[in-house]
């Protein structure tokens, strides 16, 4: 629509011409500063936090579980070690007790002792020296000795106290001492008995470097160990170990096994992860995957948030567009209606002796205006011409056709043409093939004093006449609508006595889609007759009220004249 037409409404023209670019309408969120930055990345930060928390949780859990598992397995292995050691003790204890039993049975026979001792000492024996003692009274007496020379002086007080202790306690005595050639373990055992009591004392060297490697498949094979004599784990008590770095710290298990009247304390630690290398890697695996997944999740979240933002923005823009559209639409309809009103005569001439009433209702379809019109021309002297017409279709082209016909018919009327001539001349101006429209037109030329009207009809509905005696639709000679072809039109004169009312109208008043035309015409007749006593204006208003359908797509135009004299 040309902006030119909008001169009347300055506000609207400004709106139409200076269209605001939509992107200026709302500021982008990113430009709102730090608070905005957090808000715009909030979801991603939350995902990041959650991901990190989960990752840390998984890492910690798997690490702790792994730890517990390793410790548990170490403890189990440690106990196995303890069992093995405990099982090995009899190999020391039993032969010595056998020796005591033998001595008791032979009453300390030296020869028998030597025989016994020879199997215990020497390259295949487990002791470096063995000696037999007898308890006499409160004193201990050496009976015999075999093997290498004992590292502990047999006659010494220390030795004697060891032997005496052996007689006193029920289990065997274990001591450790430093001899000339290194460290030694000393064992002394005795047995209860009725006769003379005997005790055996034996010595075993400890390896100088305190190293003892273990068989591949033994209980020790996965472990590093350190065995101490006594309950404490200090260097002085160390018996044997297979590692350099002592004391063992970190993950370790400590097993205590009774060893005679002493204790063997073994500390073990794992050589490699007991539960297998894979489980040690779990925390790392979780860490790496957790971080990667978290990063991926953050990235995806960002993308999704961005996309949603974009969609929201698009939605807002769309809504704005729709609002603009509605506004423009409303404006266009206002323009159309304004145009329509402008084309219809606002002021009708007043003709003495003639009462005139008109009404126009635009159809309710959208923004397109229709092509109905009426006009009244005063020729002076009580003579007049009225025209009522209906151009087919809607929209600007129908409206401009209507304008052309209206003005043309008025000009011909003022020129003194008869109704039929007016129709014929107008018909020459319009061609449905060219203009795409035709028009139904009713022209009447009236004379107030002579009480006469001459009607010519181009496809229009016959007008309704109420004249004192009868009321009915005037039977005119219906020609083809204007713009169809160049046919002639006939005229029909009617007489209109005083107080007669002639009502001309367009089909929007009487046509309903589901009804026949005659139903509408009857309705009009009824409404008009019901109002015969009213003023012409009231009659016309009432007719329109009664006949106006709920939704009328078509325009309604009605023009009524009444002879007052």
């Amino acid at each position, binding site marked *: 629509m040309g902006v030119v037409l909008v001169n009347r409404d300055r506000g609207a023209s400004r709106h139409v011409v200076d269209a605001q670019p939509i992107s200026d309408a709302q500021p982008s969120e990113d430009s709102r500063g730090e608070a905005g930055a957090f808000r715009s990345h909030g979801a991603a930060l939350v995902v990041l936090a959650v991901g990190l928390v989960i990752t840390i949780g998984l890492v910690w859990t798997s690490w702790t579980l792994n730890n517990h598992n390793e410790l548990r397995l170490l403890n189990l292995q440690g106990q196995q070690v303890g069992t093995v050691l405990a099982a090995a003790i009899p190999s020391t204890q039993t032969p010595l007790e056998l020796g005591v039993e033998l001595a008791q049975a032979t009453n300390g026979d030296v020869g028998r002792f030597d025989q016994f001792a020879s199997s215990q000492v020497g390259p295949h024996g487990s002791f470096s020296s063995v000696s037999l003692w007898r308890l006499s009274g409160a004193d201990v007496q050496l009976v015999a000795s075999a093997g290498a020379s004992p590292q502990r002086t047999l006659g010494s007080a220390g030795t004697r106290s060891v032997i005496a202790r052996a007689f006193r306690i029920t289990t065997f005595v274990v001591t450790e001492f430093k001899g000339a050639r290194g460290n030694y373990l000393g064992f002394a055992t005795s047995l209860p008995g009725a006769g003379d009591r005997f005790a055996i004392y034996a010595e075993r060297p400890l390896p100088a470097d305190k190293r003892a490697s273990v068989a591949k498949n033994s209980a020790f094979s996965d472990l590093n160990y350190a065995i101490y004599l006594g309950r404490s784990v200090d260097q002085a008590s160390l018996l044997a170990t297979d590692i350099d770095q002592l004391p063992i710290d970190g993950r370790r298990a400590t097993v205590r096994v009774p060893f005679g009247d002493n204790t063997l304390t073994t500390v073990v630690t794992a050589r490699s992860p007991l539960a297998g290398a894979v489980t040690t890697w779990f925390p790392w695996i979780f860490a790496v995957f957790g971080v990667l997944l978290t990063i991926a999740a953050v990235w995806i979240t960002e993308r999704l948030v961005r996309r949603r933002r974009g969609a929201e923005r698009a939605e807002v823009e769309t809504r704005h567009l729709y609002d603009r559209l509605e506004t423009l639409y409303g404006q266009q309809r206002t323009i159309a209606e304004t145009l329509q009103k402008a084309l219809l005569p606002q002021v009708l001439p007043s003709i003495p002796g003639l009462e005139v009433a008109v009404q126009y209702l635009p159809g309710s379809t959208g923004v397109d205006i229709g092509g109905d019109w009426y006009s009244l021309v005063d020729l002076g002297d009580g003579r007049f011409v009225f025209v009522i017409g209906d151009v087919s279709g809607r929209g600007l082209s129908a409206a401009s056709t209507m304008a052309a016909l209206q003005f043309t018919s008025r000009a011909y009327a003022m020129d003194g043409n008869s109704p039929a001539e007016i129709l014929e001349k107008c018909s020459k101006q319009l061609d*449905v*093939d060219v203009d*795409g429209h*035709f028009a139904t037109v009713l022209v009447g030329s009236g004379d107030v004093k002579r009480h006469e009207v001459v009607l010519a*009809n181009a496809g229009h509905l016959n007008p309704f006449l109420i004249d004192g005696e009868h009321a009915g639709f005037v039977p005119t000679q219906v020609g*083809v609508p204007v713009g169809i072809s160049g046919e002639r039109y006939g005229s029909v004169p009617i007489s209109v006595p005083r107080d007669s009312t002639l009502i001309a109208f367009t*089909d929007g008043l009487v046509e309903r889609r589901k009804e026949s*035309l005659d139903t509408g015409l009857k309705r009009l007749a009824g409404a008009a007759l019901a109002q015969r006593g009213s003023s012409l204006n009231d009659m016309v208003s009432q007719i329109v009220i009664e006949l106006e359908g709920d939704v009328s*797509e078509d325009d309604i135009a009605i023009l009524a004249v009444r002879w007052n004299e």
Partner: protein
Amino acid sequence: MARIEDGRLAWAEGVLDDAGTLTIVLSGEIDIASADGVKRDMQPFLGAAPDRVVFDLQKLAFMDSSGIALLVQTANRFEAVEVRNPAPNVRRILEATGLAEKFGL
């Protein structure tokens, strides 16, 4: 039928016989909204240059000025245009607009 599915209110179908008579069957309700579609439907048939055109209106439930314009425009292109089997309300419209005689009713 395809028409019902695509929601159109009116359409035209045509049959051209050996004698050069084109029979156009108009269906539905022709108003300003549906008139263009009907016009498009008619083009290929009218383009076949028939000798006479007959409009069969028995399936036409309603017609307003846009339908009349269609009939008239066709009548202006082809000398002999007839209208047959109009429903009572359609016939009434044609009579009221003075076109009944023109279309042989």
